[in-house]
């Protein structure tokens, strides 16, 4: 089969929608993923991540919108798409009585141009378990085998649906390394996760999905204007001391005063100058920028009104 044109992007989605029994799970989302990009779909449980990726993989039918993966419509051209993609489902299994090597070889045999099985097994770090039966693998090792099976056909594009959910921290770091290695091989990766740090560590670009909609999209550093949001100054004043003029604000729940000055340098100078003059200690003085977690929580919290507000959490 001819390889798809190099010019089209790996994934392009426009106005995708999907309902289950009249309840919208995906309510009109747009996405585009370039070749060679690691793209994270970040969102809480039930946001519509699995629905979205399984439509892209060809497992589920969409209700509306346009979807293209390497220029193919997963709903219509599934057979042509299958050799080009590797799929790690959110929950999946493999036949119990084969060894790791046999399993990878079996799946490799389904593809026109497989990657050598030993290479794939090395890539996911299962070389020592090559001849172990699948039933004997730990949970983390089984997940690596899932990735190995998805890589067996040497796909251009890899879907990873919550690849590290349930992992302990060290297993998660190892899994991240595998994804980085894949990126270094030039593979396009679409991963879903509800871990902010995972998106931050791995993704070139992140889309935050909440209740079936994309609520923010960008690089992990700039997501929702995180790089442009004004930093906040926080400190606590001793009891009975009133805030200086221009810094008056109702204390937050934890007793801290918080302000987001226009000119941080000048404001800090004034504040500390005032404190030294008075002999007042500014307890717990800190400068806070919104973390990706803040942005994420505010974006996915249905009661928050926007990223600016969220940054002031």
């Amino acid at each position: 089969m001819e390889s798809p044109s190099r010019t089209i992007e790996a994934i392009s989605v426009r106005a995708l929608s999907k309902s289950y029994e009249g309840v919208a799970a995906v309510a009109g989302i747009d996405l585009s993923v370039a070749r060679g990009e690691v793209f994270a779909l970040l969102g809480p449980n039930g946001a519509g991540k699995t629905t979205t990726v399984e439509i892209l993989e060809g497992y589920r039918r969409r209700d509306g919108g346009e979807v293209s993966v390497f220029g193919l419509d997963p709903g219509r051209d599934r057979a042509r798409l299958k050799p080009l993609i590797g799929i790690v489902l959110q929950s999946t299994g493999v036949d119990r009585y084969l060894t790791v090597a046999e399993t990878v070889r079996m799946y490799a045999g389904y593809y026109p141009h497989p990657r050598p099985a030993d290479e794939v097994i090395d890539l996911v770090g299962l070389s020592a378990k090559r001849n172990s039966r699948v039933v004997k693998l730990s949970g983390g090792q089984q997940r690596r085998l899932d990735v190995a099976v998805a890589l067996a056909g040497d796909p251009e594009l890899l879907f990873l649906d919550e690849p590290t959910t349930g992992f302990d921290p060290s297993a998660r770091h190892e899994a991240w390394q595998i994804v980085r290695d894949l990126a270094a091989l030039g593979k396009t990766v679409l991963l879903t996760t509800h871990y902010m740090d995972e998106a931050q560590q791995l993704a070139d670009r992140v889309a935050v999905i909440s209740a079936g909609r994309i609520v923010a999209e960008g690089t992990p550093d700039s997501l929702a204007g995180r790089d442009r949001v004004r930093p906040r100054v926080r400190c606590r004043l001793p009891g009975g001391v009133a805030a200086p003029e221009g810094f008056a604000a109702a204390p937050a729940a934890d007793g801290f005063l918080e302000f987001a000055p226009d000119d941080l340098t000048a404001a800090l100078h004034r504040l500390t100058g005032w404190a030294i003059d008075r002999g007042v200690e500014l307890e717990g003085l800190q400068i806070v920028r919104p973390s990706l977690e803040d942005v994420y929580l505010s974006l996915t919290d249905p009661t928050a009104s926007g990223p600016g507000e969220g940054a002031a959490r």
Partner: protein
Amino acid sequence: MSIGATLRQVGYVNKMFWRNPASAFFTFAFPLMFLVIFTALLGHGTVVIGGRPVHQSTYYVASMGAFAVITACFTNTAISMTFSRDAGVLKRTDGTPLPAGVYFGARVLHAVFVAVLLVVITAAFGRAAYQADIPGGATLLRFLLMLVIGATSFCALGFAITAAIPNFDAAAPIVNAAIMPLLFLSGIFIPLGDNAPAWIVWVARIFPVKHFGDGFQAAFLGTSFAWSDVLVVAGWGLAGLLIAARYFSWEPRS
């Protein structure tokens, strides 16, 4: 079409089958065990089949052969496909370029292979222990045709019934509820003889089990072979295939 791919897949199915020793053991042990038990309990008289007296031990060689094939093809296929479906193996396979026909074809080929092996073992055991006749010549060829068509048809019915199985826990009860009454009503466990109640005769006539069993009797007991038996069995197999094509699910149902 993809003969190489199918044979390669049969190899993997075969490996998995033998590496589950409990399942493999019982697939082979059950029919022989039943053969010994039924013959010990009921095997001392004769039964009149097609106007001819037949020794009951010989009768059971034929019917346990049929039982073995039905277990290997219908029961095992339905239960193991449900297991693979609920474990997520089928969904994963469905995400690869492997044609569905190759996957199903390999399962069927392997089940037929096991079925033939079972019949050979049952017949050899029957020959050694009960002096049963072994068919030859044209009888053998007609019998092999019935065996292969029957085995394939029961596999297709095994695929079809998975559509009615909501989850793996329900697989064995549902499959047994479907097949056990038919095995009794079709004279597999207890000969129907010539004065069975009319309704049982009708049930036996409609469903494929008795027709399949009659094919075995023609081979082992020398009763007359009826092409209509082959046709009824094949018709059920075709129906199973159509139902599977329409309702088979690659994903867990819940």
